[in-house]
């Protein structure tokens, strides 16, 4: 799978990441690091624990990472849940988590396929 195919599959912005990081090798390296990124798991756990502060921070971190990697789809859904948590709306956050999870799974699969 090419980097471009991967970004198309996961709803990322290939042109933007290419203009910033310049080489596919670099994109592969950083995208690969996403597999180690724990903020999604932390978000799920802290939401379950009703720990709003920690959940907010986890969502915020996830959002920042996606921003840096131009994972646009997951960035958008993690942005929405970050804002809900910033306002302290846990119920809204619970609902938004479904979309985040869907985008996260798709992104994870795409990146795994890319790294091979």
């Amino acid at each position, binding site marked *: 799978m090419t980097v471009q195919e991967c970004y198309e599959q996961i709803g990322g912005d290939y042109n*933007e990441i290419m*203009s*910033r*990081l*310049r080489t596919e090798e*670099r994109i592969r390296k*950083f995208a690969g*690091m*996403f597999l*180690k*990124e724990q*903020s999604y798991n932390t978000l799920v756990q802290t939401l379950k624990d009703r720990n709003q502060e920690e959940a907010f*921070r986890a969502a*915020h*971190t996830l*959002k*920042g*990472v996606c*921003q*840096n*990697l*131009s994972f646009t789809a997951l960035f958008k859904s993690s942005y929405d849940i970050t804002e809900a948590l910033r306002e302290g709306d846990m119920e809204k956050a619970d609902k938004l988590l479904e979309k985040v999870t869907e985008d996260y799974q798709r992104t994870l699969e795409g990146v795994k396929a890319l790294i091979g």
Partner: protein
Amino acid sequence: MARDTILIVDDAELNREMIKFIFEEQYNVLEAEDGQQAIDLINERGEDLCLIFLDLLMPKKSGLDVLHFMNLNSYIKYIPVIMITGESTDESDEKAYEYGASDIIYKPFAPNVVMRRAKNIMELFEYRINIEQELDERTRELRDSRRKLEQSNDFLVNALSSVVEFRSLESGEHIHRVKYFTKLFLKYLREFYPKYNITKESAALIVNAAALHDLGKIAIPDSILLKPGRLTAEEFEEMKKHTIYGCELLEKFKQEDNEFYRYCYDICRYHHERYDGRGYPDRLKGDEIPIWAQVVSIVDVYDALVSERVYKSPYDVEEAARMIKDGECGIFSPEMLDCFELAKAELFAATENKFSFADSIEA
């Protein structure tokens, strides 16, 4: 040692890596995953750091906490901080700048732009730190050479005044006492009579100039200067001329607009004038007599009274004070008599304890 280390503070490893790869070829890179780790590393390696990338929202201590710490400990003056943030709000930007951040970079960032901005900021800081160090060094050099100059100046003034003493066969302590008493008088004059506008610097010059008050005695013949008994009227007229001779000597080295020269000249010439206009050589009256000459005049009279001379034994300090107050040994302004009252205890103590003047003169 040159600063060559960059600290990257972000709770997401991936974000740290994305900055790290930009710099790791040219710099040492340290990483911290929360504000507390950052503070610990700054404490430990502050001397080596040339730049900090700082995330705002982190566990334990936030980015603002780190900035606050850096302000409290003055690190912010030497280590530039670039904030990294996902969302830009005017409020948080304002706050970051207010806390001393040098720049703000927004996610997602392009590595080459980050590199350019970081280099600009590091150059600016390095330049400023160098300028400050150079300035410190220059200031220290200037202070050192000024101190040396003052020391040689003191040495020369003391040497010159002891020539006069040596010739008059005086003990050598008279000049030290006059300097010390002048210093005491000026202390009270500055405190209670600010209208004379005598600064600390001027006071130090006046004290030195006081040492030269009898410079003109060098030109008085031995037959008069060293005469054991009372002087005849004619001899006294010649003796009075030491005020003029002193000035003639000084005029050979006249320095226009030099404060120290003016004090030396005025003190040599006017330290025998009287407030009522019946002194010599110019019969100046009241405030026509420069205040520094008035000071040296009264302390010179006091010291003469309480010292032993070939033609008289010393007066008791209380008696000397009474004679000065009652106008038996010259007429002084009310301000001078007031300063005398204020300084009396210290004058007496110095006279009676044979105070070690050589040690007390240092400003």
